């Protein structure tokens, strides 16, 4: 296929990476959710593009799921939650965003370093892979640098975006659709959990006020 097609694929993947950085940078929850929605849409675009490139129609399903579930349903749900829990102005970071950014850059460098040296695998898959890996690592980074449950969920979801990106990048990989469905269910569970257990603050406890005394084997037991 012509080079252009790959460049577009790269563009989309690169766009996701940039959005991951935006996620890291953002510290107001509402904004974070919006950025994530954009990333999800970007993902669905790139998946759709892959479907076109690999002429694998079933990938369209994945793209659709990504668009609908992660682009619209979940963001709206999250917006509702934060409104319900009155934390939409919450600003919470463990380490300053500047440092986070630097770490993020380091991670990107690392992932490129890891994937770059070319083997038999065709070049563009490689570079796609580098982007995907970077997105994953950044998502993980986001999960551990945010105290707020919602932002952590978002971090996990962007990690999962990276996974889908990689999976769809792998030509002719079976079960991709099923797996993306499974992941969406998983995320639904998490969001559901956040909602039901009313996790206001962090993943540490289901409910700070009620549970600090209940963490397994308290020191003072």
């Amino acid at each position, binding site marked *: 296929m012509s080079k252009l097609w790959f460049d577009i694929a790269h563009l989309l993947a690169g766009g996701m990476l940039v959005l991951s950085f935006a996620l890291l940078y953002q510290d107001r929850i509402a904004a974070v959710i919006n950025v994530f929605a954009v990333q999800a849409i970007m993902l669905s675009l790139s998946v759709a593009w892959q479907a076109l490139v690999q002429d694998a129609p079933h990938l369209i399903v994945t793209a659709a799921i990504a668009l609908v579930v992660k682009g619209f349903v979940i963001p709206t749900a999250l917006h509702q939650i934060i409104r319900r829990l009155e934390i939409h102005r919450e600003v919470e970071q463990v380490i300053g965003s500047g440092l986070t950014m630097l770490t993020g850059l380091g991670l990107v460098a690392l992932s490129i370093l*890891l*994937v770059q*040296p070319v*083997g*038999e*695998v*065709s070049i563009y*898959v490689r570079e796609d*892979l580098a982007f*995907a*890996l970077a997105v*994953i690592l950044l998502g*993980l980074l986001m*999960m551990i640098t945010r105290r707020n449950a919602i932002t952590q969920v978002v971090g*996990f979801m962007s*990690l*999962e975006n*990276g*996974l889908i990106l*990689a*999976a769809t990048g*792998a*030509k*002719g*990989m*079976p*079960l991709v659709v*099923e*797996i993306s469905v*499974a992941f969406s269910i*998983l995320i639904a*569970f*998490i969001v559901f*959990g956040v909602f039901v*257990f009313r996790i206001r603050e962090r*993943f540490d*406890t*289901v*409910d700070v006020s*009620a*549970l600090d005394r*209940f*963490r*397994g*084997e308290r020191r003072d*037991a």
Partner: protein
Amino acid sequence: MIGPAEAVIVIPAVAVPLLAGVSSYRLGASLNILACTLTLVAATALLFGEHPRSNLLIIDDFNIFLIILTTFVGFTTSIFSATYLAHEIEIGRLTPLFLRFYHAMYQALMCAMNAALVANNIGLMWVGVEVATLSTVMMVGIYRTPEAIEAAWKYFILGSVGIGLAFFGTILIYLVAQDVVGDGLPAMSWDLLVKSAPMLDPKLLSLAFVFLLVGYGTKVGLAPFHAWLPDAHAEGPTPISAVLSGLLLNVALYALLRFKMVLAGNPAAINVGAIMVGLGLMSLVFAAFMLYRRRDIKRLFAYSSIEHMGIATFAFGMGGPLANFAGLLHMTMHSLIKSGIFFAVGHIAQVKGTQRIAAISGISVTHPVLAVLFSFGVIAIAGLPPFGMFTSEFMLVSSTFARQPILSIVLVAGLLVGFGALILRLQDIVFGDPTGKAHPAQASYVPAYVHLMLVLIAGLWLPEPVVEWFRSVAALLG
């Protein structure tokens, strides 16, 4: 027509909706046992006849004994859980509605684990492991106590991250294999992967393994990915602790080993052994020290599971026929003993009405039979003869010292530290003046005794076929 290999997946799968529909918990429990029995029968049927490989399923020396082990422990646990849950219902800790859910999830778990074991496809195996994780998450939280929910939540989050990383590793493996084996299912099937291992790109392979190690290592409970394990064991219902420790950890380790086989076939790939040795030793030593400060009896044995998974991982990391043999034996013995211990612990916690070690003492006075059962279990898990774990630790330590004296010193130190903690708690619980209630436990000791009997036999004599399986697998593991 479905052969036994498919049956071990299909039977539980069918049982799931069935059990979800049954309202009477007695009927549910017996149906549960029935399903497990059928699965066990199907599994034993695997011993006979040929099993043609497909791109999805495969039966070879490696997974056949694990399948039988899994179905067997699943079966005994189902018997145990019947009596256990009856008691839980009595004291009103659970409602029949939850039991319906519980039984369904139990079968889902069995189905998932069997799927992961018989899968010839890394994707299918991944799905199996993840479904198993989710179903156990459900059951860990079933008591709805704040601790239980918190434990389930921790398990859920850490598990999901593990899922993600493992999946990325799987994708990488596919990508690597794709160029050699070709697109689609073949590029994901074990036997082809192992066969074509030498041609695969070593660098990407190593990268993939790192993700798989972290992903599945979280399931195995290796330190520092272990955090979910102790709480999940301590807060969930005891039968689930039994299958978690006894089976799920094994399945995850099995997955890791399959990938190790692939890398072992590729000399240019990174030295997996060193990494596994490091993680194994870390888990062993860490868990050994953690054992001392445990106040909750189930959490205590959860940490001992971490310790033993560490030992097994260390063994496979060392490699070589003896160490691999020891590792396989260790896996097997651990799942039998540990589930047996959890049976005993469950009964103890029920009769004493608490899981706090400080509140349990002198059960050899009040419940001699239970005490003997428990003591034998702990003695076996501590690696004392004449039980099977002594054999595996004998092979491991002795063969290691001849090759890596320093490592084996660390290993021995860790073993000794853990040993001390276990014996200390054993004496606290079994001996001394009795505390708490003395009323007889209504419990079925049979499953636990069967487990210990098997372990005892294995300690004195290993059947020929088992030795053969272990040998061939050990050779493959390199």
